[in-house]
C-alpha cells in the first residue's frame, strides 16, 4: 500500500536529471523534499505522479508498476498540486475546486462531492473566493484554489481504506507567511487524519522542520539524504548542499529548531 520509486534514472535528451533515486512515501506522514534550484525535485514529483516514465528503475503503487494503472484508477489514489496553473477561461474558484472530484463524480452522491469541495475550500481558506472567477484571483489565491482542488481529490470517498497520496509542488510559493503556514498545516492535517501519504517540495528550512515528518535532500539529481527530519537536517550537510552557511539553534520559547542562513 505504498508509492515507491526504486533506483530511478531520468535522462532527457542526454541530460541526467535524476540518478539512482529510491524513495518511498509512508501513509500518515508528510515528506519534505529540499534541495537547490534545478536539483531535480520537480522531476522526482513528476516521476511519482506518473507524468514522466523513468529511463531506468521502477516506480510502483501497491507493487504494480505505475504505467500499468489506468489514469482514472490512479487519480482515485493520488492528487497533485502543480506549481502554477494557467486557466484563461472564467471558471469560478468553486468550479475549479470541484474539478478535483472528477474521479469520484459518478461514484458517490452530488451531496458528498459538494461536501468534500466545501471542506477542502475551508481548509485552504478560500470560501470567501468561491464565486469569484479564477482568472482574476491573485497568484497566492490561485495557489490556494489549486491546493483545495488537490485536497478535495485526496479526500476520496467515505469509507475509503486505500492510502491516498498527496503530492505538492512548492505549495507555499507566492503565499503570504500566514497562508504558508495554513497550507502546510492543512497538508499535515490531511496526512494525519486520513492516513494520507504526503510529499511537499519546500524551500523554507524552518517550515520543513516544523511540518515534515521526514526529509529528503536532493542535489544534482541524486538523493543525498533521506530520513527523520531532525536527523537529516544537519547544519553541515545543509550548508554544503545550499552552498551558504546555515546554523541551527533551538528556540527557547517554542523549543523548535530554528535555521539561520547567511552567505
Amino acid at each position, binding site marked *: 500500500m505504498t508509492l515507491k520509486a526504486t533506483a530511478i534514472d531520468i535522462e532527457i535528451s542526454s541530460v541526467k536529471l535524476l540518478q539512482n533515486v529510491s524513495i518511498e512515501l509512508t501513509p500518515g506522514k508528510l515528506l519534505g523534499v529540499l534541495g537547490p534550484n534545478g536539483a531535480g525535485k520537480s522531476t522526482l514529483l513528476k516521476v511519482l*505522479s*506518473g*507524468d514522466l516514465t523513468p529511463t531506468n528503475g521502477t516506480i510502483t503503487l501497491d507493487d504494480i508498476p505505475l504505467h500499468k494503472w*489506468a*489514469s*482514472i*484508477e*490512479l*487519480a*482515485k489514489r*493520488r*492528487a*497533485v498540486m*502543480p506549481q502554477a*496553473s*494557467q*486557466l*484563461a*477561461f*472564467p*471558471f*469560478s474558484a*468553486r*468550479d*475549479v475546486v470541484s*474539478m*478535483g472530484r*472528477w*474521479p469520484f463524480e459518478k461514484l458517490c452522491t452530488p*451531496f458528498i462531492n*459538494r*461536501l468534500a469541495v*466545501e*471542506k477542502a475550500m*475551508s481548509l485552504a481558506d478560500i*470560501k470567501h473566493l*468561491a*464565486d469569484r472567477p479564477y482568472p482574476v484571483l491573485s497568484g497566492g489565491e490561485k495557489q490556494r484554489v489549486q491546493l483545495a482542488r488537490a485536497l478535495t*481529490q485526496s479526500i476520496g470517498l467515505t469509507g475509503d481504506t486505500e492510502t491516498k497520496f498527496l503530492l505538492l509542488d512548492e505549495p507555499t510559493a507566492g503565499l503570504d507567511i500566514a497562508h504558508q503556514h495554513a497550507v502546510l498545516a492543512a497538508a499535515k492535517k490531511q496526512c494525519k487524519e486520513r492516513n494520507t501519504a504526503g510529499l511537499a517540495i519546500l524551500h523554507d528550512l524552518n517550515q520543513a522542520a516544523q511540518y515534515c515528518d521526514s526529509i529528503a535532500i536532493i542535489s544534482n539529481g541524486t538523493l543525498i539524504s533521506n530520513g527523520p527530519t531532525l536527523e537529516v537536517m544537519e547544519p553541515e550537510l545543509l550548508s554544503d548542499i545550499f552552498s551558504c552557511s546555515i546554523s541551527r539553534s533551538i528556540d527557547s520559547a517554542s523549543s523548535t529548531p530554528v535555521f539561520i542562513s547567511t552567505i
Partner: protein
Amino acid sequence: MAQTLTAAPIRRQQTNLKKSYYILGGLFLLLILSSIISLGIGGVAISPLSNLEHFAAYIGLSESKLELHQVLVIESIRLPRIILGLVIGASLGLSGAVLQSLFRNPLADPGLIGVSSGAALAVVSIIVLGDTFFAAFLELTRNFALPVAAFIGSLLTTALIYQLSRRDGLTDVAMMVLMGIAVNAIVGSLIGLLTYLADDTELRSLTFWSMGSLAGAGQTTWPSISVMIIASLFLLKLSSPLNLFLLGEAEAHHLGIPTERVKQQAAIAAACATGAAVAAAGMIGFIGLIAPHLSRLIGGADNRFVLPAAALIGANLIVIADTIARIIVLPAELPIGLVTSFIGGPFFFALLFREFKKRRM
C-alpha cells in the same frame, strides 16, 4: 459545522445548474422560432402561421391552406436548406468550442487545425486541375467530386498537422497550434498559385465556393449531414473531460483523464465535423469562433453548458445569416460566408472591447 457552512453554496450551485438548463431550453425555442420564420421569408413570402398549419397537417392537426407552388418552395428548397444550415452551424459551433478547450486558447477555431485550408486546396485542385490530373477521381465521384475532395483534403491536412506535433508518442498542443499556422501558410500559398492559374469560369466557381453557400442543399449533402451529426454527438460527449483540459494537460492527467486519447478523439471528430461542413457548403467563417464565446458570455465557462450552447447558437446564427443572405439582394443571393463575416467581424470587435474594459477595471 460542515453542513451549516455548506447549505447556502449548494443551493446556489443548483440554481446555476437550473439556469443553464433554462438557457439551453431558451436557445432551442429561439432556434425553432427562427427556423419557422426563415421558412417563410424570401421571394415567395409565406406567413409563419400558415407554415405551422402546413406542417401540422401532416399529423392531422390542421389543414394546409398553402398553394402548390408555395409547398414546393418550402419543402424542396427552403426546408433542406434550413436543415443543412442547422447541422452546419451546430457542427461549426461545437468544433470551435472543443478546439478552444483543447488548445486552452480562446482564439482557436477550426481553421487552426487546417480543416478549412486543406478543404480549400483540395477543391481548388479539383476545379483548376481536375480535367487534366484528376479525371479518374471525377469519373468515380461525379456529383460528389467537390464535397468528397473537400472532406479528404481537410482530414489529410489535420492528420498532417497532428502527426507533425507528435514526439515520443505524445502530442504537444502548443506545437500543434504553431504547426497549424505553418501548414496553413504553405497550403495558402498553393491555393494562391492555383487561383493564379485558374481561368475566368474556374475563378467564378472558386470564389463562390470559398465564400460559402447553402444553395447546394439537397440529396448531395445528405452524406455530409450524417457525418456532421455523428461527429457532433461524439464531440458533445467530450464536454466533461475537456473541462479538466482547461486546467492544463498535466492536471487533466492527474485527475484521471486519458489525455492522449481525448486529444486524438477531439481532433478527429472536430476535423470530420468541420470537414463535412466545408464539403457541403464551402467555407463559412467566424461561427466556430463566435458561437462558443457567446455561450460563455451568457452562461459561464463550464463545457457541459458551453458545448451544447455553442451548437445551438451556431445553428441559430447560420439560419439567421442565411435568411439575410437570401433576401438582401433579391432576386439574387449573397454568399453566406460574407454575411457571417460581416456580422461576425464587428461583433468580435465588441467582444474584444468588452474584455479590454474588464481588464482595466
